[in-house]
């Protein structure tokens, strides 16, 4: 980057800004719509372990009407409806209509130990979500989802504005190619994994923006985003606290310069690291490193483990896990079922989403410098070795205990990292390449959203494309299922098209500032 030149681009952008409307301004709205469709696509309790998480949120209110102390320290008295809302879990053919049998109006409380009572999870996510708790559970749940969506879109839009032009492809492509379908499902859910993904995926880019900033305002705004995203990651899951520290490290590595200024600037991320470390220590989920991620989530996981009773040990187990960990990565693209691992995703979604990720990432491999190589290799190593270690340590096989959503934050980080520009080369996709990625993502989201809705509306035993027909369940007050599906798919399609168009336009403009060309020009003069 030649200093000064980027400024010129900025100014021209600003004049654009004031003169005319550009399609990119629609992107946040489209993103909100697309994610909201996913929020409406699944019923209360649909994300994995939501009974546990909802109870934890309700108990974080400190309101006696919602949660009272139990007979022991490890239990509480909580509304029965929260516990039994995932009545359909594990039965793909059972629609969410089973919730009709639950009395959502009852004020009676029952004793349960399914909740964050012994401090297995960091408390922040639950406290923030508890703001939205009200007498109508469904309404509260939907409010929380919409808030999570708005938070994510807000952070990402702010980052887009703050980041210099040459960093934007990492933001845009990084999120687009790593979140269909699992990421988008989680971002629009009540699960703390949504925050973990959003926090880790945003923190490193926010920190880069903080280092790159040319004006105090940009720096302060970026610092604010770093703080928010670190709190989101570390405040939602113990493992994400660990990841977000790694993500900050990646950004620091990319921005490193052995100058006094750099070291002074680094005091702030170091402080955020301490904050994340504190959350990490508070959450007893850290036991994960020693005896698997099971912790409080033993309920469904144990059930799963029982089915794969195959016993392996020693070298065989280590080799099996080492060789099969890639299946966890593919889980982000639908290789694993969504929800309570009971919403199977067709092979076409997995194939298309994976193809988009690999294609974009592979082009990114042609833009390397030594720092990027180290960062990519480091994240890759963690992606491979962490699940292998945790699984083997706990005596488990791939398929048990560790789920793709636990490592999804790292997959998102990896996607952005592969795209990030290093050295003098620019990241740009060709016309056919862009078209390919755009079509793949649109098709994957379209099919995945349909499958996800089908599973809850009628259960997977009813075939057919029309989601309205024979619907057994849907949100009351929401538009018809087909409308939600159409709006969600179209909004997502529009979003991808707008962003891809913006990326290819800006990649055309970039050569203007290419130092190599400038050298050539001055030489010819």
């Amino acid at each position, binding site marked *: 980057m030649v200093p000064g030149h980027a400024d010129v681009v900025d100014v021209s952008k600003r004049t654009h800004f004031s003169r005319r409307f550009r399609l990119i301004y629609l992107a946040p709205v489209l993103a909100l719509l697309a994610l909201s469709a996913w929020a409406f696509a699944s019923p209360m309790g649909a994300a994995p372990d939501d009974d546990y998480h909802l109870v934890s949120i309700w108990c974080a209110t400190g309101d006696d009407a919602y949660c009272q102390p139990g007979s022991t320290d490890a239990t509480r008295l909580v509304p029965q409806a929260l516990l039994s809302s995932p009545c359909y879990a594990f039965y793909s053919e059972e629609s969410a209509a089973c919730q009709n049998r639950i009395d959502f109006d009852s004020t009676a409380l029952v004793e349960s130990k399914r909740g964050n009572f012994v401090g297995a999870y960091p408390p922040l996510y639950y406290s923030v979500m508890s703001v939205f708790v009200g007498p109508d559970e469904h309404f509260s749940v939907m409010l929380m989802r919409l808030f999570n969506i708005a938070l994510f879109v807000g952070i990402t839009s702010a980052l887009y504005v703050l980041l210099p032009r040459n960093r934007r492809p990492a933001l845009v492509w990084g999120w687009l190619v790593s979140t269909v379908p699992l990421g988008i499902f989680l971002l629009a859910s009540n699960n703390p994994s949504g925050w973990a993904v959003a926090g880790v995926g945003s923190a490193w880019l926010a920190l880069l923006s903080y280092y790159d900033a040319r004006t105090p305002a940009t720096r302060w705004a970026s610092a604010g985003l770093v703080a928010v995203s670190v709190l989101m990651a570390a405040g939602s899951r113990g493992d994400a606290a660990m990841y977000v520290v790694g993500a900050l490290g990646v950004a620091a590595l990319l921005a490193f310069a052995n100058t006094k200024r750099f070291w002074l600037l680094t005091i702030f991320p170091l402080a955020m690291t301490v904050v994340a470390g504190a959350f990490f220590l508070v959450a007893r989920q850290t036991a994960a490193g020693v005896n698997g991620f099971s912790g409080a989530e033993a309920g469904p996981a144990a059930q799963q483990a029982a089915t794969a009773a195959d016993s*392996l040990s020693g*070298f*065989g187990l280590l*080799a*099996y896990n*080492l*060789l*099969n*960990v*890639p*299946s966890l*990565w*593919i889980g982000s693209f639908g290789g694993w079922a969504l929800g309570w691992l009971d919403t199977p995703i*067709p*092979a*076409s*979604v*997995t*194939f*298309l989403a*994976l*193809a988009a990720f*690999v*294609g*974009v*990432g*592979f*082009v990114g*491999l*042609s833009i*390397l410098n030594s720092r990027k*190589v180290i960062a990519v290799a480091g994240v890759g190593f963690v992606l491979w070795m962490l699940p292998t270690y945790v699984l083997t340590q706990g005596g488990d096989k*791939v398929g048990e205990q560790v789920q793709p959503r636990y490592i999804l934050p790292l997959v998102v980080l990896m996607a952005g990292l592969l795209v990030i520009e290093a050295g003098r080369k*620019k990241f*740009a996709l*060709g*016309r*056919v*390449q*862009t*078209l*390919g990625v*755009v079509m793949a993502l649109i098709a994957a989201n379209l*099919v995945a959203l349909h499958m996800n809705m089908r599973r809850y509306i009628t259960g997977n035993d009813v*075939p*057919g*494309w029309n989601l309205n027909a024979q619907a057994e369940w849907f949100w009351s007050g929401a538009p018809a299922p087909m409308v939600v599906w159409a709006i969600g798919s179209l909004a997502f399609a529009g979003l991808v*098209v707008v962003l*891809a*168009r913006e990326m*290819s*336009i800006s*990649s*055309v403009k970039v*050569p203007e500032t290419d130092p190599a060309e400038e050298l050539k020009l001055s030489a010819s003069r």
Partner: protein
Amino acid sequence: MAPVLVFAALAAWALSSPVGASPDDDFHLTSIWCATGNSDYCAPSGDDGTRLVPPAVANPACFAYDAEKSAGCQSRLDFTAGATQETGRGNFAGGYPLVYYGTMSMFVGPDVHASAFVMRIVNIALFVGIGVVLYLLLPAARRQILIWQWALTTVPLGLFVLASNNPSSWAVMGIGYGWLALLGYYESRGRRRIGLGALYLLGAVMASGSRSDATVLFIVATCAAVMLSAQRSRQFALLSLLPAAGLAICAFLFRASRSVDAVAGGVADQLGLGVILQRIAYNLTEVPSIWTGIFGQSWGLGWLDTSMPAVVWVSCLAALIGAGFVAARASSVRKSVVVFLGATALALIPVTLLVLAGNDVGDNYQPRYLLPLIIVFVGAVFFTPAAQSVRLSRAQTWSIIIALSIAHFIALYLNTRRYVTGIDALSPDLDAGREWWWNLVITPNVVWIAGSLCFAAALAMLLSSARMTATRASGTQAAEIAVPQRGIRGL
């Protein structure tokens, strides 16, 4: 040097699996033995639907479908016995074309082990031999297609099939080489053109002489080559007599094998349109599983019983998508049309056959049937329109080489492991406690390590040279091309 390494790597695959290891080998071996016309090998049984063949030919696959059962069960078979066992599994009614069986029957001898192994080596030699000749004859700019299309699609299923006794190996070779020979035939002159034309016809005979469904795929592949080279000229029309001859060969061999009923044999009762549409939709959403099956995802090798760990299929698939995505950048309207039609064919051919037969993805239609067309598709993606080139960076090329080598290393180990002891004993030492192996001095460990090293070395040589020829072939134009491509605007 590279051909020797490829040969050695394939030979390691030939050794890694016992007689009868590839799908339906009892059927195919019996057919080969009976194609000899020698009553020592295949005697009439008195019944039209059965023959008497050596027991090791009639029922070699005692291990099939049980991955924990090693090929040690073959020790109960007498591999030198005469034609004593009656079997109904063979090409007696003429469902399969005869060329493959006829050719292979030349290598039948009294020892079933030796005969089967020689046939595998012959197939490998054919693959390597045609490959070398084609490489030398093709115009320099097209050689990279040859290398990429094979390297990216053959781990692990392709290698397993090529080094087997299964007619699918000829289908893969015939189509994979045939279409490229035709492409080169249009673009070269003189003796080279004659040579390439001959290779194309050889491909037609091999493809349609091995499997009847390969005939259909060969025609599709021919269309791809013709579309990529078509010109409005008298010369082109004259040259196109060759593909016409190729199609005639296909038609003749297809008729000769009477296999229409084999393709559409399972047509179910008339179903309602709604049900059929649902079936089509379902199969369309699942059809990529057949594509990724060539890398071992959810489809095992052998009798579909040798499953591959995620690392194998993820590495191979990522290598293919990554390289293909870079190659897709070199585009023209014509190439885009061919690639689009190719993708459509890859989706619709399996879906149509499955829906007609009343099946869903996962039943009956196996990835190896589609493999030849996938190879052609990848080749078409690497086709470079005039003055464009496919250029991979060094980091990209080496990531592919490493990914494929690791996948090959693990796939060869698992395939050997599955037959040596069964998949239940997972130690890195293949020699320990082995229950089956060829009557040879070299041990499974040696074969595995040497085969993997040869494969890795061959990849390193071929792919890095393909990367360089691409740069050299485009030469001076490379710099000019890079600039306009940046100028691509919008979508």
